């Protein structure tokens, strides 16, 4: 996969996902060592190009790169062409001229990482774009589930929340489906995207039905600004109908695990108690985020001129 872009889970084969997860398992071992640094990417340069602020994801990539001995440079343009004149492509080309070996791109608008990937020689990893994809989050979620359940195939995974505006939901839908899991989505109808069933998932507006027999429950963060768009009436109503607590969890399988991409709105998506205790695996997700991103940087980092890159 050297030199290949990672824009979305949609572009990956099942075999590629398996390779990434296996490599991430190896990286998880490195993360457990006393000395957590290996010389693998010595002399390589990785640029974190974050048009949208994200302390968590950026730190995770930064730690991953540094543990592999790469030089990691953070670049956070304060504005984008939505409100300023330098175009995203000019910014990206400027960075490319510095010969990075990998560029990690985050942007609030869907499609930007792909457009940047089209003009850069360095491979591009999408660290989240609008409501399009967030492949590294989905991969670390799959890694976490694999570690907890020993398999992905045949599991029932329920994603709860604002599916329509969630890149995490999309990438997880593609990923878990590819790996043979049954994926369900649940949320208030205005938060369920048009024709989501075409992606092979079942959509529910009744949480109890959605949770029936679920092995994995993934709660999504509610963006308060969505309230302005009137996608749901109030936090209180959302929390009452779609917020997870121990009582609602009874409908799921006995050994179900609870996930959240973070940061959690305590008492909204997850009860305070559920945020911190089993069966929540939120901190495992964070830990796996570093291992997973180390795996991706290991597999992808390296400049291959785009014309000669294997497709």
């Amino acid at each position, binding site marked *: *996969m*050297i030199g290949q872009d990672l824009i979305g889970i949609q572009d990956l084969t099942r075999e590629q996902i398996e*390779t990434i997860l*296996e*490599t991430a*398992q*190896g*990286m998880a*071992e*490195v993360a457990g*060592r*006393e*000395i957590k*640094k*290996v*010389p*693998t*990417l*010595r*002399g*390589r340069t990785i640029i974190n190009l974050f048009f949208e602020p994200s302390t968590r994801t950026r730190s995770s990539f930064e730690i991953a790169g540094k543990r*592999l001995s790469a030089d990691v440079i953070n670049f956070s343009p304060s504005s984008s062409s939505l409100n300023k004149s330098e175009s995203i492509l000019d910014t990206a080309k400027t960075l490319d001229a510095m010969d990075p070996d990998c560029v990690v791109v985050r942007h609030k608008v869907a499609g930007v990482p792909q457009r940047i990937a089209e003009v850069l020689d360095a491979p591009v990893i999408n660290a989240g774009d609008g409501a399009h994809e967030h492949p590294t989050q989905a991969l670390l979620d799959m890694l976490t589930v694999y570690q907890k359940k020993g398999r992905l195939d045949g599991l029932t995974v329920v994603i709860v929340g604002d599916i329509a505006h969630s890149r995490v939901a999309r990438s997880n839908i593609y990923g878990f489906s590819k790996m043979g899991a049954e994926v369900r989505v649940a949320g208030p109808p205005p938060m369920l995207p048009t024709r989501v069933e075409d992606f092979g998932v079942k959509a529910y507006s009744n949480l109890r039905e959605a949770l029936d027999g679920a092995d994995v429950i993934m709660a999504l963060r509610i963006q308060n600004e969505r309230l302005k768009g009137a996608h749901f009436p109030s936090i209180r109503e959302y929390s009452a109908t779609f917020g997870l607590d121990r009582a609602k969890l009874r409908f799921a399988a006995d050994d179900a695990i609870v996930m959240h991409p973070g940061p959690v709105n305590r008492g909204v998506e997850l009860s305070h108690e559920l945020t911190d205790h089993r069966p929540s695996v939120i901190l495992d997700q964070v830990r796996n985020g570093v291992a997973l991103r180390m795996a991706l940087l*290991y*597999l992808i980092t*390296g400049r291959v001129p785009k014309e000669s890159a294997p497709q």
Partner: protein
Amino acid sequence: MASQHPSQPGNRVTTGGARDERAKGAVNGGNAEEVVVLDDTAIQRSLTRIAHEVVERHDDLSRLYLVAIPNGGVPLGRILQSKLAAIGDAEVPLGILDTTLYRDDLSRGGVRPPLRRTEMPSSVDERIVLIVEDVVSTGRTIRAAMDAMIDFGRPTSVQVVALVDRGHRELPIKIDYVGKNIPTQVGDKVKFRSKGTTPSGELEAPFEVVVTGGGAPRASRSGERGEGGR
């Protein structure tokens, strides 16, 4: 070339095409010829001898620490561990150390080999480490293993056990205990392998070491690492 392949205890098999004496030494591609240079009995015998040598050379066996390099080093390490227990009455810890992330060719383009297992049960501080590898050639894997090991502590000394030393060293690496020296041509492949694997994916007895003729001229391929050396 035939003279370089010890005839004992070798069993000659061909993997492609009819058996043909004239093809030997000039094989290439699909007609490569395999020669078993060590069978399971010979391997066990070599390790017994090595275990004796190890016991002989060390007064305090409690400081020993076996570090096996996957994949081939792992079953060899386990056998050596049990032989040390039998011969020296010593419980020697066995760690597994993947050297992939320490390879010196990762920054040079197109390789990102799959990672293998690393399981180091404890620090190697103050230990006498025996690195166990199946086939040593260029010495680059041993170099990587030494670098990797430093991340797990500061051993008193490091020694190398190799089932096969096939030569073609590219680094100043010395083998302390060798099962068998097998001189080969650069293009040859030397492989430690087994008939099967355990459910966890580890190689399982019976084992053997085979040489496959590559037939490339020595001069033009010098500097290239034989695959068996990894």
